[in-house]
């Protein structure tokens, strides 16, 4: 009789961790392949197309980096929040709020100020917008014990409606292709691009900087230590005299603010106007959750996982057009990969041995 013995694994080395993650991803890709098969598409062809679309060509790679930037920005902020077990599912709304604030600055001040003032101002505004939207669920949780998953999600919907309200109402500008939006941003408010691509300098550098800075914050600062203790054991945190309100507020300012920065990048770097929520962000706030999780909540690793997922998004776009798959496929990919990661985590934390026992 074969018996499964599950025991705690005490020593988790970085190497094992990496291998397990890799295997989980491979397993995930395998499942995705099955999905393609089910859809009547050759899985190898589809997967190949995805990766060649995003990493195979220079153009593809540039697109991948473009999409990676918001994922890294948001993802690194999420690693901090998640480490403190603050489940910020509202990055999407925080991103939009950042975009709104940036649009406000650029539309109403852009004509009067030169770009070297406009651009930093926009980023400041975007950060503030995202941070404000992030503070709300922080206060709701600490003062009113309201579960942050629900509050951040509700704020997503509220912000999306708010944005739509603005662009069909007071901020309505010229119409483009039948969808409403604001006017184009004035030149001074448009982010400079690395030539030949859609990668905007400012956010590119920002994203790398933020990943590094956040890594330092988490591991080397007192605040980072306190956030980690709060996430590990809130009771011990209270015993240790940690101020929950202050810690939660700061981490949500950071997480929300970073999402806001991503919003600025999208709106001032790529689209150059403020449109429907779906036009501004293609679900970055949610994909970033997986990016953070894949990075094992280490902000430096979001650089890697962010590029990987951006690759899937870009490749997914390419495949969608050429193979006629619906846009919802991305959700399936994300879901499958996340589940495989969770399962992989289990094998990482537990040692499974088989024993053959006499009945």
């Amino acid at each position, binding site marked *: 009789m074969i018996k499964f013995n599950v025991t705690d694994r005490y020593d988790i080395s970085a190497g094992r961790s990496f291998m397990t993650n890799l295997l989980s991803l491979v397993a995930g890709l395998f499942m995705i392949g099955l999905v393609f098969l089910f859809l009547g598409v050759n899985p190898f062809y589809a997967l190949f197309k995805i990766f060649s679309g995003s990493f195979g060509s220079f153009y593809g790679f540039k697109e991948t980096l473009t999409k990676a930037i918001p994922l890294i920005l948001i993802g690194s902020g999420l690693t901090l929040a998640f480490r403190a077990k603050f489940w910020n599912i509202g990055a999407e709304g925080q991103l939009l709020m950042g975009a709104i604030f940036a649009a406000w600055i650029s539309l109403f001040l852009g004509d009067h100020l030169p770009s070297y003032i406009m651009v930093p101002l926009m980023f400041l505004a975007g950060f503030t917008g995202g941070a404000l939207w992030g503070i709300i669920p922080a206060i709701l949780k600490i003062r009113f014990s309201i579960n942050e998953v629900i509050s951040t999600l509700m704020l997503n919907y509220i912000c999306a409606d708010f944005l739509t309200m603005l662009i069909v109402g007071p901020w309505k500008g010229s119409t483009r292709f039948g969808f409403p939006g604001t006017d184009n941003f004035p030149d001074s408010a448009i982010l400079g691009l690395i030539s030949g691509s859609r990668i905007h300098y400012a956010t590119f550098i920002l994203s790398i900087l933020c990943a590094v800075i956040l890594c330092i914050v988490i591991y080397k600062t007192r605040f980072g230590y306190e956030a980690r203790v709060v996430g590990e054991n809130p009771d011990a945190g209270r015993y240790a005299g940690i101020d929950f309100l202050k810690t939660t507020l700061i981490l949500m300012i950071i997480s929300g603010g970073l999402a806001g920065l991503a919003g600025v990048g999208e709106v001032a770097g790529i689209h150059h106007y403020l449109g429907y929520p779906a036009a501004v962000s293609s679900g970055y706030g949610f994909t970033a959750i997986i990016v953070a999780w894949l990075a094992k909540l280490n902000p430096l690793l979001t650089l890697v996982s962010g590029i990987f997922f951006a690759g899937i998004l870009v490749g997914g776009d390419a495949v969608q057009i050429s193979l006629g798959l619906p846009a919802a496929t991305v959700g399936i990919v994300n879901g499958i990969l996340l589940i495989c990661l969770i399962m992989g985590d*289990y094998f990482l934390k537990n040692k499974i041995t088989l024993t053959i026992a006499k009945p």
Partner: protein
Amino acid sequence: MEDMIVSTLERAMVAGTPLLLATTGEVICERSGILNLGVEGVMAMGAVVAFIVTMTTGNPWLGVLCAVGVGMAISILHAFTSISLQANQVVSGLALTMLGLGISGMMGKPYVGKPLLVKMEDLTLPFLSDIPYLGKILFAQSPFFYLAILLALAAWFLLEKTRLGIQIRSTGENPKATETQGIPVTRIKYLCVLIGGGFSALAGAHLSISYSKSWIEGMTAGRGWIAIALTIFALWNPGRAIGAAFLFGFVFVVQYLLQPLGISPNFLSMLPYIATLIILLFISFKDPRRLSAPAMLGEPYKRGER
């Protein structure tokens, strides 16, 4: 004027139905200690499956049955990762939502915008439906409505007045103590997650074959999340969920009442989500120490041997 009130209340009942179904399911699930954030995704799956099956076979009840089956099947994923793998229940539930929304979007693509030709007939109860005002509101509704209320009452009865109910509630409060008395805690948790999934799918089925008789991606519009908030509002009691869900149905419907007053429709569509936050605020004043929640909700349980 009266007609407007009556028709608003009638529509509030309709709008509250999916909320009640999903909330009842989530209450049962959470009472066993498992937090299921996948409701939104499962609801979408239920909606799409019900729609497709109904459209292809012409039989709405078959559609409902298939939806429930699929809902339960896909919930097994979350059950497995949360119970057997003791993974983080928040992340697992989110994965389920992503998967559910994704798969349903994909399956539903060819059916977007196609109207459902087969209708699920409203059930008009004789005599009762002739009562002025109340008759139209309460007794001439879609079968889902009656089903939702009956199921909620049945759930309440199950939890409070049966042996299984005690076992479920004890599992959520203290799985270790419950297991020591020989009760199969793992099996109960699986059962409750699956039941919850079935209910969420049922809610989705209502949306696509009774409420709007069509399919479009994103039609769940956050109702799954609202249901999760409503479980808290209902203090994990299916009886209270009835009141909570229809109160919310009213909030959904009041948008249309207020529209002619010139208020921005976008602001009005925010109302349900703002209302969710407000009721959660309200609850935090009433029950600040969260004494009503199952004590071990969301905590992974490692069974048996050290």
